[in-house]
């Protein structure tokens, strides 16, 4: 695709994400208990679990929005450590979509999409705008490019947020409950975009309770409770024959109504 210079420190043959024995405390509260997780390139992983189980905390450790206390996180072989350069390195390759969209309200949609590529990837404005328009078309809102986020609906804002993340041309996309803040009629338009991305081979880690989405695109579903990974299995197995009681209870609650 476009000629964005990679720093080439990333080893694209290594696993996309490799988390080993990860622990995280909030004060004395043990929020993540020896998490182990490997995501290979192109894989789609859906993370679910009850509220407070540590799903957000785990994926936010991957791009260091939260600092972990022990264990190792590697992204394409680059280990996250105290070396600030490694954090920058990884954030360039890992995009994130938030529950609350978090678009920059003082910038237009187009500016939201071009800011980071211009400042971080150091590409020209013309190239950044061309890339932005391509991704805005992909999420089906090129006509809103000159508007401000406050003028868009929730579903449109979340699609802009996805386009903004894509403009950095990341190798991995993290989603933290991307549809939880949306009105029901807007959920589908966002999920459609996510399905398209999945089919195109993007490496994705999604925290979501949209089980239909999990069935459709996930290679693996992960169930977390109380800071631990309780179960991990392909969707057919996960929904068909869940091994743990906690998983069964959770599934009956989520799918029950």
């Amino acid at each position: 695709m476009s000629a964005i210079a990679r720093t080439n420190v990333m080893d694209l043959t290594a696993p996309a994400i490799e988390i080993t024995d990860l622990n995280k405390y909030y004060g004395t509260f043990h929020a993540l208990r020896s998490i182990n997780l490997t995501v290979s390139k192109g894989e789609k992983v859906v993370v679910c679990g009850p509220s407070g189980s540590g799903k957000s905390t785990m994926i936010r450790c991957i791009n260091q929005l939260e600092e972990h206390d022990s264990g190792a996180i590697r992204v394409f072989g680059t280990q996250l450590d105290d070396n600030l350069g490694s954090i920058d390195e990884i954030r360039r390759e890992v995009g994130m979509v938030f529950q609350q969209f978090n678009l920059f309200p003082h910038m237009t949609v187009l500016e939201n999409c071009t800011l980071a590529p211009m400042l971080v990837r150091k590409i020209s404005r013309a190239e950044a705008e061309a890339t932005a328009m391509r991704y805005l078309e992909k999420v089906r809102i090129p006509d809103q490019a000159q508007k401000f986020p406050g003028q868009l609906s929730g579903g449109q804002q979340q699609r802009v947020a996805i386009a903004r993340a894509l403009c950095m041309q990341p190798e991995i996309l993290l989603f933290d409950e991307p549809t939880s803040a949306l009105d029901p009629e807007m959920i589908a338009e966002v999920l459609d975009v996510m399905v398209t991305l999945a089919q195109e081979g993007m490496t994705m880690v999604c925290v979501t309770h949209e089980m239909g989405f999990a069935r459709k695109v996930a290679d693996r579903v992960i169930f977390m409770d109380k800071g631990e990974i309780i179960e991990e299995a392909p969707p057919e197995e996960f929904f068909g024959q869940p091994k743990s009681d906690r998983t069964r209870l959770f599934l009956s609650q989520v799918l029950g109504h």
Partner: protein
Amino acid sequence: MTASSLPGGQSARLRRLRRDYFGSPLAVLMTLLSAAVIAWIGWFLLDWGVIRATFGADGTQETCVAHGGACWSVIAVRWRVILFGIYPYEEQWRSALACVVVGVVILLSCLPRMWSFGRLALVWVLGTVIFYTLMRGGVLGLVPVNEQQWGGLPLTLFIFVATGIIGMPLAIGLALLRRSEYPVIARVTGWIIDTIRSLPLLSILFTCAIVLPFMLPGFLIGEKLYRVLFGAALFFAAYQAEIIRGGFQGIPKGQEEAAKALGLTYWHRTFRIVLPQAFRLALPATINQFVIAFMETSLIVVVGFMELLAAGNTAFKTGEWKFAYAEVYVFIAAIYFAFVFGLSRYGAYLEARMNVGHRKD
């Protein structure tokens, strides 16, 4: 005809007028009473300030008293003292030009398209150099004029602008340090800000003007004017830093997280994402702070500078104009009003401009 083509337009307005101001006997009474007071004040001002006033440089106390109204002759005769203080008479064109320079710097700084580091720095440095050259002289064949002789409007404007230009970056720096990740830095900055804010401006000005020279090594003392300026800027910065901090607190946490997730550096996050939003939230308070700073320029008279208000005081101190102090104060008040009113209109313009596209939130 237009009234009938606008269905309800004018008659609705009339109806609202009648409801709001003549809705009850008490409302009628209040409306009439207020109208009478306003009319009386208006008539008095018109009568005193225009109809029975004396204009022109040839008016004297006798002619003014004979007319019974305002004696604007004092302005016509003494305006150069009011505007330029004790700056040498033959050189006052330099003062006037310096005022224009400051005015241009203010106008340019107010234009949103000038808001980049490079452009603002260029305008400010160039403006300062031209202003200083004009006022101080000593080069290009200009007679040197000591800072102690500067006075009136250029001095007031210079202090105001310099307070802003030095104080605002200082305020941003303090506000950023105060939210530092390192608790020690944040705490110490907090103490500094709170200490400055708990001192009266007067005491800071006195300290800078009189006490500081005893404490500093000789080469650091510098001209009194600049020490005082530094004190005023520091005072401004402490208050403005708190205003900016208030702005920071209004920004959702997700904004900075999104910027981090995109890989933006600390400086890019700060100057592209956080500060613009903080300033938008803090704008009304910021304009207010500038208005206060403009008013407070008159305090520097206590450390021996003849700014606008003090220069005005000397204008009627000579025997022949002693009776005409009200006119001088009205004249000075009009100048202050023009600036402050302009400032608040500019604030309203900025708010309207920033609200474009923020239908929600």
